[in-house]
């Protein structure tokens, strides 16, 4: 398989630089953008295989951008890379069309894996959020 072409979207430039370095061994980072609108424009122009997207960006919510991206480019794999560990938000990201969800804090050990998994048409969810998604952290039933 050829090296995946990756588009990075995050409002925080220093993080974009680090994420690009983390992916450099296995991927070609073809573009970096800092807003939801720029992401939509760059995806149309660059046609990447994978978009790594922060869902908390200015000028259009990242979730809106993810949903729109998936409508416009059904084959594009989308990995959400965020500070938000809320399982409800993770679930909404997958409903919007994401294939991966991980936290920025664990990007060094998980970002390459997430991109690799999505390139093989598999989903990836960081273990830091998985337990919330499957319900182990959810409230127990009440006996009222």
């Amino acid at each position: 398989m050829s090296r995946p072409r990756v588009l990075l979207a995050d409002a925080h430039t220093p993080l974009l630089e680090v994420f690009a370095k983390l992916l450099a061994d296995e991927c070609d980072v073809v573009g970096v953008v800092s807003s939801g609108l720029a992401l939509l424009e760059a995806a149309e122009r660059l046609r990447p295989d994978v978009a790594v997207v922060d869902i908390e960006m200015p000028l259009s919510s990242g979730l809106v951008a993810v949903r729109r991206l998936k409508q416009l480019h059904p084959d594009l794999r989308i990995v959400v890379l965020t500070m938000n560990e809320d399982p409800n938000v993770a679930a909404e990201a997958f409903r919007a069309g994401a294939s991966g969800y991980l936290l920025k804090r664990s990007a060094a050990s998980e970002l390459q894996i997430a991109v690799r998994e999505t390139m093989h048409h598999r989903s990836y969810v960081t273990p830091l959020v998985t337990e919330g998604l499957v319900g182990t952290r959810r409230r127990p039933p009440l006996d009222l």
Partner: protein
Amino acid sequence: MVNDEGRPRDAAPSRAVTGRLIAAQERERRRIARELHDDISQRLALLAVELERLALSAPGDEAFRRCWHDLSHAAGDIATDLHRISHSLHPAKLETLGLVAALDGFCQELWCRQHLRVRFTHDNVPRALPGDVALCLYRIVQEALYNVIKHSGVLDADVHLSGAGHELLLRIADAGGGFAPVAAAAGVGLVSMHERVEAIGGSLVVHAAPGRGTRIVVKVDLELQGEDRRSE
């Protein structure tokens, strides 16, 4: 049971003034939340990532790498806590996922962090609500459930949100120690709840008595949001 509607009203500022004060407070909270989220917690996340890169690539023995990893984990924990504080100051989730998802997340968080078991139910709640109504109801639930944790002596509570026609009804109940409403009427928490609800043209009633639990009922007319309050 005693209904609490008896807080002093003569000195109360007009609804419009209260509304503006609450809006100013929310704007300031939003500004601080953005500062925490957009700057400090992102810088900490960057630190966590760089430390983890060192842990993965640094030569040396396993104990040395473990040390870098632990430092990365500590920085990541602080970043996550700041992110959580930021969302508590201004729940951005209200705008992205709506009131029901935001309340569900908040109730889950109370279980994880405070071990309060909240049964949250909802029916017929419109997905799109006016921003100030959603924020008001979210703040009421926050305040009421923090009160359950602090004062009720029980670890269970019920929150129910429902829509009927153009009316939204919120009910928060616990079977804890309750209180004497007259004595508590001047408390900052209850006054603040009343003011928030009045600012969006709704009503709030507290049913409580010592030893008989507490029930807070809020009603909001959604039609009013589009008519009377446009001019305020």
